[in-house]
C-alpha cells in the first residue's frame, strides 16, 4: 500500500542486488574474526565467577610464566579516568564506569565481568594461562531484581551513584544507591481524568532480561605501533564512537586511533559500547604485536548486551464510549552493573501511541548485578509497549470495542501533544492501524479451537545525528561512494540508491564502500534507525555537489554560461537543446580539469518517528501451554521504502526478535547471580521452525525532513510483538499474561489459576 500522489522514482523503490552480496554468499566477505596479520597473538579474557565481589588481590605471575604467554593485563594497565563524562555520539557516558566495565577495578559487579586478559601464541595457551591467574575475591551479596535493588537496605553496587533527579540530587540523602535516575512527566490533570473515566484498569507487569542475540560474537584486533598509533580492526556499529571510546579509555588522542570496520554479523544496539578494543590495545602495547580477542558465546551472554528486565505498572482510564481520559505509568528498568538503562525512552514511549489528555509517568533507572545494559532495537520501548498495549486490549475487551477502532479513536496524530511535552509532526500511526484493519488477515476467520488473534501498536523515535559521504565520478560514468556507516543489513545499497536516484543513474553504477576512520568524515553509529535517513541525506548532498560541478564542466565544454545549464534526468541540459548524459559528460572530465568529487554531510535533520501495528494469530496448547504463532502481519509507516526487500527484512527480523522476547527468551539466574542459560541451546532464540512467514504492509507516509521521505524502519518492529501475542493468547485461552516471556509453564499456571477461579 502506498500513499497516493507518490512521486515517480527511477531507482528508489526498486530491488537491486546488494553490492556486497556476492562476497557474502561465497564466504569471501571479511568479518572481524576473519582478519589475519603477521605476528598475530590471541587474547582471552578472564571473567569473574561471582556476581558481586570485591577484588582483594590479582596475581598474574603463574600465568606469565607459562610458555607461549606474551602478556597479561588487568585494570592497572588501563589509565585511570577520574570523574568525567564524555559525549560519545549517542549521549554522554561516565568514563569511570565504562572503564570499570572493560576491566573491573576494585569490584566485580556481575558474573562474567572482565578481570584480566592474556595474550599468547594461540587461544589454547591463552585459555590455560587464564586459569593460572590467581584472583582473591571477597564475595558480596548480589541483588538481581529491580524492585529489591530499590529498597533502602539493598546491597549497593556503586559507591559513586546518587539518584539524579533531573539535574539535581534529592536533598534527602547523599547515600550511595542503586537508583541512578528518576524521570517524571505530567500532562493535564490526572486525578480529574480518572474521575471522568467509566472504566479504570490498573495492572502490573514484569519483563525478563533479554539479549540482542547477534550471531557474530564481539571481536577486536589491535596493533599498538611503536610510534604510538593504534589500529583496531573490529565489527562495530560505529567506527567513530569505537575510536573515541578506545582513545578516551586509553587516554590517547583520538587522532592516534584508527578503527577499520570489518563486516559486522549483527548488532541491534549491542555493538556500540566497546568491550575488547582497549583490552586488545593494552595487550598489543605490552607485546608490540597485533592481538586478536574474540568473545565466546557464553561471554557474549554474560558480559554484553542485555536489554533490561523491568517492572511496569499501568493505570488507564477510559469512558464508556472508548475515549482515553487519563493514564498513569510507573516504570523501573534494570540498568545492570552501571547506570544507563533506556528508562528515558521507556517513559517517553509508554503513552506515545495515543492522545492522552491527562497522564503521569514516573520512571527509575536501577543498578543490579547483571551485565551493563545496552541498547536493543527501540531500547526501552518494547517493555513499555507490552504493558500499555495489553491494558488497552483488556479495556477494549471489557467495553466490547474493536481494538483497531479504539486505536483509530485515540491514536496519536499530527498536532497531538505527547505526555513528555512536544507536539507530533506528520506521523503515520493511524495509517498503520487502518492498514491492519483493512488487511485480509484481520478480516479473516480463525481456523480452529484454542486460537486467538491480537493486535498491538508501537512507537520509536528514530534519531538523526551526523553522517558524511564522499563520492567520486569515474571517467567511465561510474561513481565510487565512501561512507562511514557500517552496513549490517544492506544499507550500503540503500545509500547508493539515493545517490543514484539524485544523479539519475542506476544503482549498479555506484560502488559503495564502508571505510575506516581516517578515510571518511565523522559518522555516527549504525543505530537509532538512522543510516538510510541521515547517511542517505549525506549521499543526496554529495550527489547535488556533483551535479553543481558537472553543470560547470558542461558549460565549459559548450562554452556557455553555467547559469544556462541545468542538471536534469541523469544528465546536463543547456541552451539550444544541448544535452549530455551523465556518462557522456563523465568521459569528458579529463579534458575539463579532471576528477569530480562530491561531498555531503548531514547533521541537522531529525526524524519524526515511526509507528507500527502488528496482527498475530496464535494457538495455545491447553495441555502444555505452548504457543504456536500461526500467522503474523506487520504494518508499519516506513516513510519511503528505498529498497523494499530490505525494508521488509527489517520488519520481519524485528517482529521475530519480538516473538522470541514474547515467548522464550530470558536470562535465568540462580540466587548467587549466576546465569544458568548462557548458550543458544538454553537461551532459545526463534528458529525457522518456530515462526510462520511474516507478512508486511509498507505504509508510506513520507517524512518531510528527508528529500525522498525516508523514515527509519529498523527499530519499531520489535515493539508490538509481545503485546500483540499476549492479546492473542488472551483471546485464545482467556488468560491475561503479565510477565515476559510467556513460556509454557507461565501459561499453564495462568490456565490453572483461571480454572481454579471458575
Amino acid at each position: 500500500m502506498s500513499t497516493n500522489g507518490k512521486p515517480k522514482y527511477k531507482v528508489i523503490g526498486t530491488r537491486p542486488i546488494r553490492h556486497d552480496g556476492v562476497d557474502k554468499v561465497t564466504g569471501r566477505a571479511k568479518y572481524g574474526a576473519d582478519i589475519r596479520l603477521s605476528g598475530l597473538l590471541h587474547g582471552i579474557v578472564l571473567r569473574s565467577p561471582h556476581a558481586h565481589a570485591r577484588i582483594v588481590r590479582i596475581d598474574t605471575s603463574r600465568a606469565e610464566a607459562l610458555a607461549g604467554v606474551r602478556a597479561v593485563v588487568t585494570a592497572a594497565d588501563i589509565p585511570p579516568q577520574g570523574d568525567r563524562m564524555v559525549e560519545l555520539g549517542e549521549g554522554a557516558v561516565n568514563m569511570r564506569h565504562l572503564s570499570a566495565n572493560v576491566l573491573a577495578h576494585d569490584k566485580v559487579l556481575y558474573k562474567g565481568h572482565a578481570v584480566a586478559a592474556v595474550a599468547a601464541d594461540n587461544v589454547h595457551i591463552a585459555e590455560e594461562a587464564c586459569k593460572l591467574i590467581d584472583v582473591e575475591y571477597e564475595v558480596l551479596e548480589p541483588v538481581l531484581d529491580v524492585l529489591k535493588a530499590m529498597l533502602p537496605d539493598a546491597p549497593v553496587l556503586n559507591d559513586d551513584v546518587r539518584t539524579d533527579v533531573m539535574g539535581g540530587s534529592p536533598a534527602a540523602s547523599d547515600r550511595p544507591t542503586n537508583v541512578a535516575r528518576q524521570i517524571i512527566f505530567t500532562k493535564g490533570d490526572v486525578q480529574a481524568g480518572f474521575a471522568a473515566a467509566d472504566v479504570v484498569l490498573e495492572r502490573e507487569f514484569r519483563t525478563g532480561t533479554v539479549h540482542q542475540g547477534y550471531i557474530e560474537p564481539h571481536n577486536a584486533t589491535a596493533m599498538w605501533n611503536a610510534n604510538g598509533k593504534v589500529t583496531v580492526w573490529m565489527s562495530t556499529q560505529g567506527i567513530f564512537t569505537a575510536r573515541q571510546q578506545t582513545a578516551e579509555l586509553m587516554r590517547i588522542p583520538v587522532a592516534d586511533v584508527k578503527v577499520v570496520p570489518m563486516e559486522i554479523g549483527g548488532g541491534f544496539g549491542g555493538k556500540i559500547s566497546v568491550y575488547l578494543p582497549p583490552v586488545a590495545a593494552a595487550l598489543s602495547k605490552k607485546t608490540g604485536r597485533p592481538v586478536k580477542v574474540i568473545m565466546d558465546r557464553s561471554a557474549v551472554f554474560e558480559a554484553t548486551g542485555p536489554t533490561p528486565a523491568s517492572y511496569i505498572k499501568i493505570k488507564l482510564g477510559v469512558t464508556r464510549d472508548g475515549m482515553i481520559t487519563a493514564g498513569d505509568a510507573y516504570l523501573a528498568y534494570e540498568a545492570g552493573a552501571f547506570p544507563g538503562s533506556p528508562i528515558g525512552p521507556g517513559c517517553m514511549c509508554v503513552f506515545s501511541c495515543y492522545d492522552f489528555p491527562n497522564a503521569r509517568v514516573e520512571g527509575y533507572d536501577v543498578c543490579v548485578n547483571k551485565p551493563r545494559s545496552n541498547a536493543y532495537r527501540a531500547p526501552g520501548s518494547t517493555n513499555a509497549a507490552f504493558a500499555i498495549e495489553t491494558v488497552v486490549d483488556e479495556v477494549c475487551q471489557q467495553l466490547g470495542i474493536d481494538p483497531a477502532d479504539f486505536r483509530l479513536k485515540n491514536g496519536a496524530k499530527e498536532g497531538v501533544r505527547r505526555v513528555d511535552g512536544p507536539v507530533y509532526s506528520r506521523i503515520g500511526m493511524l495509517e498503520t492501524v487502518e492498514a491492519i484493519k483493512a488487511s485480509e488477515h484481520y478480516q479473516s476467520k480463525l481456523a480452529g479451537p484454542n486460537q486467538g488473534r491480537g493486535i498491538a501498536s508501537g512507537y520509536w523515535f528514530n534519531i538523526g545525528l551526523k553522517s558524511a559521504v564522499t563520492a567520486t565520478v569515474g571517467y567511465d560514468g561510474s561513481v565510487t561512494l565512501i561512507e562511514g556507516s557500517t552496513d549490517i543489513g544492506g544499507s550500503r545499497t540503500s545509500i547508493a540508491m539515493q545517490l543514484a536516484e539524485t544523479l539519475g543513474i542506476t544503482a549498479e553504477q555506484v560502488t559503495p564502500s564502508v571505510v575506516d576512520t581516517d578515510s571518511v568524515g565523522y559518522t555516527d553509529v549504525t543505530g537509532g534507525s538512522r543510516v538510510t535517513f541521515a547517511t542517505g541525506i549525506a549521499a543526496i548532498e554529495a550527489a547535488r555537489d556533483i551535479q553543481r560541478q558537472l553543470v560547470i564542466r558542461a558549460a565549459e565544454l559548450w562554452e556557455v554560461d553555467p547559469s544556462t545549464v541545468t542538471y536534469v534526468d541523469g544528465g546536463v541540459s543547456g541552451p539550444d537543446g544541448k544535452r549530455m548524459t551523465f556518462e557522456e559528460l563523465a568521459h569528458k572530465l579529463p579534458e575539463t580539469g579532471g576528477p569530480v568529487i562530491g561531498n555531503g554531510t548531514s547533521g541537522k535533520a531529525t526524524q519524526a518517528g515511526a509507528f507500527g501495528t502488528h496482527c498475530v494469530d496464535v494457538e495455545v496448547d491447553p495441555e502444555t501451554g505452548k504457543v504456536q504463532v500461526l500467522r503474523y502481519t506487520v504494518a508499519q509507516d516506513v516513510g519511503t521504502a528505498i529498497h523494499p526487500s530490505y525494508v521488509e527484512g527489517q520488519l520481519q527480523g524485528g517482529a521475530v526478535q519480538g516473538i522470541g522476547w514474547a515467548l522464550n527468551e530470558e536470562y535465568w539466574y540462580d540466587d548467587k547471580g549466576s546465569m544458568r542459560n548462557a548458550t543458544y541451546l538454553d537461551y532459545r532464540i526463534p528458529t525457522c521452525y518456530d515462526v510462520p512467514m511474516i507478512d508486511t504492509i509498507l505504509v508510506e507516509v513520507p517524512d518531510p525532513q528527508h528529500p525522498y521521505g525516508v523514515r527509519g524502519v529498523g527499530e519499531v518492529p520489535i515493539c508490538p510483538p509481545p503485546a500483540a501475542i499476549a492479546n492473542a493468547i488472551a483471546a485464545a485461552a482467556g488468560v491475561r499474561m503479565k510477565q515476559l516471556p510467556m513460556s509454557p509453564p507461565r501459561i499453564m499456571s495462568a490456565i490453572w489459576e483461571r480454572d481454579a477461579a471458575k
Partner: protein
Amino acid sequence: MAKKRVVSIKLNGDPVEFLCEPRQTLLEVLRDTLDMTGTKEGCSNGNCGACTVLMDGRPVTSCLVLAVEAEGAEVRTVEGVACGSHLAPVQQAFLEGAALQCGICTPGFIMQTEALLAENPSPTEEQVRFYLAGNLCRCTGYDKIVRAVMCAADKRRAAMDD
C-alpha cells in the same frame, strides 16, 4: 600439549594435508590453519549452525568435529559451492531474494540448503523449516531465507531439466 598429527582430507575437491593438535576442531583448522574463513563461528558448541560444512555430503557443525576426525573425508565449505565464477542456484536465490542482512549466518544456511536439496529436491515449506531449524539467523526472521531455499529448489530442478 599432545603431539601434532598429519591429517589428509579432500577440501572442495582438492587434496589437502595439514598438521593439527588433537584438540583442534575442524572449524579452527579450516579458519586458522587453512585460511578458509568463509565458514563462520557463532557459538562453538553446535547450537547456531554458522559453522556448517558438508562432510562426505552430510551437514555437520564443524565446531563439534575434531580436525583429526576428518581424516580421509571429503569436506565442502561455502568457498566450494560456486562453480568458478558461476554462483550456485542457492547463492543466486539468496542474493535475489534478499535472504541475508548481516550475512554471518549465510554460509551455514547455504551449506545446509545444499544438503537439503541434494536429499530432497522439492521440499515443502514445512520440510525446509524443519531441515534448517539448526541454523540460527537473528536478522531476517527467516521469511526471505525460506523463500530463497524454495526458489533455489525450483532453479535447481529447472537447471536439471535443461
